[in-house]
């Protein structure tokens, strides 16, 4: 098969690893990570790449994305089938499946995640967090204390900063997902140091390339992947399936 893979940069290493071992011909295109931070802009950005690849005769376009805070809710397949992993975000993909992520999340609701890609592609000053709903930026919680004080005065600015950052105090850990790629050891140590500097509990959990390997190997069992027929769209179901075709 000839496949086009449009992926989030955060998964680059893992995709390159899996593509090198895939029997298929795959053209890889990575988009900047953190698109879910740009709100409604995420969907048109990915759709644009899908549309641009549509006429190039690929057997399918596979997406290295998940629901990503609804950032893929509404993506539409053109003339080429579109394949999306069933997961809430990249954590589910990197852990080897949404159920593993959900199970882990249940006992760890307040942890930040890192993986080789989260470490490698993190820009200075960028605070990386799992995909929140795409509307998040309208809340203004990324603004610094100084900015808020400048606009709202000392007392109100400090109060707003406190409100916007209160959730962070409930975050008590940093979990590193080891995916076994060559940069893993270095990235793990950086994640451990980040946890230490912030006084967070550090946990190293084994990841899995299962989802990514299946995706690029053309093995798309319906329990793990949504395969969109030409012309249909992704719809978030938020049930066991996470997404469905519409």
């Amino acid at each position, binding site marked *: 098969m000839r496949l086009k893979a449009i992926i989030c940069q955060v998964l680059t290493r893992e995709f390159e690893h899996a593509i090198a071992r895939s029997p298929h011909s795959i053209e890889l295109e990575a988009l900047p990570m953190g698109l879910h931070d740009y709100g409604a802009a995420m969907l048109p950005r990915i759709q644009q790449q899908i549309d641009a690849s549509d006429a190039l005769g690929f057997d399918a376009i596979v997406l290295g994305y998940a*629901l990503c*805070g*609804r950032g893929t809710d509404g993506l539409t397949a053109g003339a080429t089938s579109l394949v999306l992993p069933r997961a*809430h*975000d990249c954590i589910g993909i990197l852990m080897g499946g949404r159920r593993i*992520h*959900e199970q882990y*999340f*249940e006992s760890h*609701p*307040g942890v930040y995640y890192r993986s080789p890609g989260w470490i490698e592609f993190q820009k200075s000053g960028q605070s990386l967090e*799992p*995909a*929140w*709903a*795409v*509307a*998040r930026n*309208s*809340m*203004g*919680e990324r603004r610094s204390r100084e900015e*808020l004080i400048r*606009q*709202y005065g000392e*007392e*109100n600015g400090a*109060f*707003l900063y406190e*409100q*916007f950052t*209160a*959730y962070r105090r*409930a*975050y008590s850990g940093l979990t590193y997902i080891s995916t076994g790629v060559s940069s893993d050891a270095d990235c793990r140590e950086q994640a451990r140091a980040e946890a230490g500097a912030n006084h967070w509990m550090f946990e190293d959990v084994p990841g899995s390339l299962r989802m990514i390997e299946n995706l690029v190997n053309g093995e798309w069992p319906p329990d793990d992947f949504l395969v969109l027929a030409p012309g249909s769209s992704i719809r*978030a179901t*938020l*049930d066991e399936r*996470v997404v469905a075709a519409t």
Partner: protein
Amino acid sequence: MAVSSELYEAILTGDARTAHAATQAAIDSGIGPMELITGSMVPAMNEVGRLYEAEEYFVPELLLAGRAMKSAMELLRPLIAAAGLKLSNRIIIGTVKGDLHDIGKNIVASMLEGSGFEVIDLGADVPPEKFVAAVQEREPHVVCMSSLLTVTMPVMRTTIQALESAGVRHKVKVLIGGAPVTQQYADEIGADGYGDNASLAVSAVKKLCAVA
């Protein structure tokens, strides 16, 4: 014209100190707590909601107005209790189990309070059984749940099911909200209402309680 135009203005401008002082001054001059709530606070919160809808106010302004309103309520609540008065309908609110993100929930809670509702805030990461216990003990008119992560959204359905299993679902209205939540999802899980933003959540609660 508001009963206390100073309190009204202080809420609109998010000035908690002035709101507190204006409330005290109004109380000292003999204005009753319910009169202040219905005559100054409710109109102020309505105006805050209107400005938000018009995109003149944003989330920070809502938080500041809510805080100013809270500083007034601190003075009024003991008076209401002492006089044996009753606020409007009782609301229970919380973020669902697993979701620690409560900014939106806090805004809705304070706007509801400012709109004259009695609000019982269960906080963040509230398990279904805690919602059930609160409904059984406090007999609210409406239960509000919020979720920021898609991974926690299914807990809204679980919580509604827990209310059903406990036999109390028919006694309350359920309203859901949070950035990834939609009207369609509310319909799918059998919620009675949905708020696309804090201001619309307050309107939806009013509608569910049939308060004008």
